[in-house]
């Protein structure tokens, strides 16, 4: 299907999410819709899929102007969308999930239903290795994505939109995904790939459309791609160079020593981080990275083993002892885990000290302390009385950083600190983290972006099934090596974890 979007605009409250965009996707090609987080790419495609209605502009499908007013209509036209989340229902089986999206069907789907037989045939042809009776919640992330594609194909889609599909995949799974995408294009479908990763573009795109701040700022064939130019289009200026960390001092002492801890899914995990060192943690989702951060942060109780900081044993809860207070913990998804959204910035910045405040706390003193931190870490809006829930993602991270990092912590545990942030905000986060490393703190950095880890970390610890299976030197490892350790295919019989 040949898709053209003309002059599409959409506003949400104060934000102009999409601003007069002309977009085109041709049959038999893969068009990458590239942009930072918040650039408007998802919104644009959601408008095409009928989840929102545009404020201005129109949609042309195969030369005919059409009104796509709901996903039902979009599906009828042959547009299919594979989402990052909210796409399959975990507690239902694969077959039931597919039965759900069939536009018409007999009302009976119990044993012996004819429609189900058609689904089973389709699955056998497209996804022979997955049992139609399996519950989606029991499948791996890669399998779920394959089921998604199968679902979209079942509906005889002629256009497939994929929203950040490789975000949660291991390198091997990502390669499989790219192959499937190219196969779709070869069958004549028009494929739109929403992404913020150049790797996706390099691997399978025919054209690249770049969005920034709601506008389409570039549209080039992917063959002769000038990557630096494209990044400049995405960000609007030459990307900030994040200062690389100092090389590691081999004689530095161990500041954080995790000794065979057991907590949640963590299974006798051991790890060491030295002064001035940045240790990245990589792993497929569900390997226990979040639990590691939570255990160190004192939120997840440790059942066995020890955590030793500067030679002293760490006790939960975190603020109960001076030792514990020297560990800075930046949890993932700050709005969910690290701030009280209904309360002011000054209260949030004082969260660590609440237990020690006087019976009738001096609010003005809290505000003064907060103002100083807000200025130092450039949190916007710079009002200590503003509610934390009003802050954007980047400013939330800065708020948490201001609270945790302001007192020269010995150890920093950062869990997906740049997820969802645009390049500029991410750079600011990196600056504060790496600045502390330069001053001698030990930094443990959990991230999903392997390129970032390889560029900025000293060593990378790969986690799988709740333990560290390998620690690699960041400068010398490759994506393939990381990938194989992450999926367990690189484990050799006598390998030991560091």
């Amino acid at each position, binding site marked *: 299907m040949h898709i053209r979007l003309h002059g599409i605009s959409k506003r949400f409250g104060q934000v102009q999410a999409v601003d007069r965009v002309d977009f085109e996707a041709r049959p038999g090609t893969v068009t990458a819709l590239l942009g930072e987080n918040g650039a408007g790419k998802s919104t644009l495609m959601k408008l095409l899929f009928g989840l929102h209605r545009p404020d201005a502009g129109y949609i042309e499908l195969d030369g005919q102007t059409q009104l796509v007013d709901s996903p*039902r209509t979009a599906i009828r036209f042959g547009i299919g969308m594979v989402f990052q989340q909210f*796409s399959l*229902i*975990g*507690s239902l089986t694969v077959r039931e999930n597919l*039965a*759900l*999206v069939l*536009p018409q069907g007999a009302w009976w789907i119990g044993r012996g239903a004819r429609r189900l037989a058609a689904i089973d045939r389709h699955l056998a042809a497209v996804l022979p290795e997955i049992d139609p009776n399996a519950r989606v919640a029991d499948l791996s992330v890669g399998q779920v994505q394959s089921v998604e594609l199968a679902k979209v194909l079942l509906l005889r889609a002629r256009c497939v939109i994929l929203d950040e599909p490789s975000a949660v995949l291991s390198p091997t799974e990502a390669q499989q995904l790219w192959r499937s995408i190219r196969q779709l294009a070869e069958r004549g479908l028009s494929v739109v790939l929403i992404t913020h990763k150049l790797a996706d573009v390099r691997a399978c795109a025919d054209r690249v459309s770049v969005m920034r701040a709601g506008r389409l700022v570039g549209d080039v064939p992917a063959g002769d791609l000038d990557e630096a130019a494209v990044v400049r289009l995405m960000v609007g200026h030459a990307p900030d160079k994040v200062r690389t960390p100092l090389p590691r001092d081999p004689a530095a002492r161990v500041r954080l020593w995790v000794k065979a801890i057991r907590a949640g899914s963590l299974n006798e995990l051991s790890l060491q981080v030295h002064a001035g060192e940045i240790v990245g943690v990589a792993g497929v989702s569900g390997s226990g990275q979040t639990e590691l951060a939570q255990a160190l942060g004192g939120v997840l109780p440790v059942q066995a083993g020890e955590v030793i900081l500067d030679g002293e044993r760490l006790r939960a809860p975190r603020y109960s002892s001076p030792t514990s207070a020297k560990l800075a913990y930046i949890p993932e998804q700050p709005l969910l885990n690290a701030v009280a959204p209904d309360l002011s910035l000054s209260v949030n910045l004082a969260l660590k000290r609440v237990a020690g405040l006087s019976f009738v706390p001096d609010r003005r003193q809290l505000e003064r302390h907060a103002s100083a931190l807000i200025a130092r870490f450039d949190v916007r809006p710079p009002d200590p009385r503003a509610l934390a829930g009003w802050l954007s993602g980047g400013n939330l991270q800065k708020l948490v950083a201001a609270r945790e990092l302001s007192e020269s912590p010995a150890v920093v545990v950062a869990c997906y600190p740049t997820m969802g942030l645009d390049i500029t905000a991410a750079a600011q986060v990196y600056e504060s983290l790496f600045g502390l490393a330069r001053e001698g703190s030990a930094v443990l950095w959990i991230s999903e972006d392997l390129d970032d880890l390889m560029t900025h970390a000293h060593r990378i610890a790969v986690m799988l099934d709740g333990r560290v299976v390998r620690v690699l030197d960041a400068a010398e490892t490759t994506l393939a090596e990381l990938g194989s350790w992450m999926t367990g295919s690189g484990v050799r019989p006598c390998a030991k974890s560091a």
Partner: protein
Amino acid sequence: MSSVEIVLSGLLISALRSATPLLFALLGECLTQRAGRINLGVEGQMLVGAASGYGATAFTGSPWLGLLAGALAGALLSLVYALLTVPAAANPFASGLAVWMLAFGLSAYAGTGLVGLRIEGFEPLAWGLTPSIVLALALVPLIGLWLYRTRTGLRWRAVGESPETARAAGIRPWAVIVSAIAVGGLLSGLGGAALSVDYTRTWAEGMTAGRGLVAVGLVIVARWNPWLALPAALLFGGAEALSLRLQAADSAISAHLLHTLPYLTSLAVFAFTCLRLGARRGDGGAPAGLKAVFEH
């Protein structure tokens, strides 16, 4: 038949009789919660159902019309809850309580004219069963099969798990949710009418005495599965039947103390279920859309 058999067979029928109004409400709330909404107004819906059912039976002489009137009253009242929580975004717990409060007043008001009126209920069928019991028992497999083996049932379950996903699949979630609320109202109203028209054959202010609230709790015990609604309702009904028998047998134990038995039993089972659900890492069968409501 030995005396033990007599007592036991009588107990089962008594338990069924007592469980029937609750079973209707339980099935209704089960469907509502399956679509992702929790409606504490079931108690109120039962009350207006009881009042209208009783009144309709008294004025027309037909208990079947009474059941119908009760069902319609319950459905009407549930629309208040639907209006509060679907087009508007009011807190679902508070909305249910508001509906309950309103319905208590409405049923008390309408019921002032009903006190003292007598009705002829249903003609009893074989084995001490009445038509409402048979209807309730028939609804269990009907609803169970409908929920798990039909396409509309699948769509309702999908909406309860994730309205966003359902929407992306082309379903209109609000239509399903409103239908689920209305069906819940219909069935609770029916249950209330069964209570006043069939079980007690009287009307008194607030006569449902918390059965609707028990129903909301027992939906979780029944793991949102209509098939399990029958044993769950029998828990309450059995406790009530037992307490009535104990009261008759040994008048030393106060009727009021025994009357706490059904509530305590329901609470105990509810608490036990919550404990088991919490201990498991999985979802325990809860529609995912409800979990946010429960774990606030």
